[in-house]
């Protein structure tokens, strides 16, 4: 599964994307797995209310099932326009 990071999430984690193997069933489980890894993940995911998630390029939420998902992206609220 590919994980993408944007804006300050990318800066805190230090890379724009990575591929992970996971048994997590939901976005939240995946986030909790990542937070166990290293402090930079803990720093990026410390406040989930400040984050959004997209599954296969569609906005979703942290409770969503990730079975069959190829690409997960984490980012702060958008500021285009």
């Amino acid at each position, binding site marked *: 599964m590919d994980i993408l990071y944007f804006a300050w999430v990318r800066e805190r984690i230090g890379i724009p994307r990575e591929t992970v193997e996971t048994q997590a069933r939901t976005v939240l489980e995946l986030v909790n797995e990542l937070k166990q890894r290293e402090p930079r993940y803990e720093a990026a995911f410390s406040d989930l209310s400040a984050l959004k998630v997209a599954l296969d*390029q569609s906005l979703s939420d942290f409770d969503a099932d990730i079975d069959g998902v190829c690409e997960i992206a984490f980012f702060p609220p958008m500021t285009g326009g």
Partner: protein
Amino acid sequence: MRVVVQDSPFDAGHELEFFRNRQDNIGAIVTFSGIVRDTPAKDLEALVIEHYPEMTESTLKDMAAQAIDRWSLNDVCIIHRVGRLVPRDPIMMVATAAAHRRAAFESADFLMDYLKSRAPFWKKELTSNGSSWVSANAEDEATLNRWQTN
């Protein structure tokens, strides 16, 4: 429909003329242009816009299609810059073409509201005193409720 995400600058006037010349028998065009504004401290050196390329174009096309359908528009154009911009640069532009003014105004307003809160762009301000990510405006999210249909 025309959706463009580009690194290079664009000229809002040229884009309006190009858009107008594409149309057949419309009565109204509304455009919105967003422009890089300096910080209150007047120290903005650049605005850097990041996006999620695999998601951006499909999101913008989906918004444009929704607007065309809901307001029976003749056409929609969305242009958005990414990369490094300087003060006074156009950031983005939407244009809507319709038979009548109400449809053109409402749909441009709708597109801007959705683009602000749903299109995957992020802005970072680089100033002579450091850099910071622009925070989303809570009102921008709330204003989407205006467009809910029952």
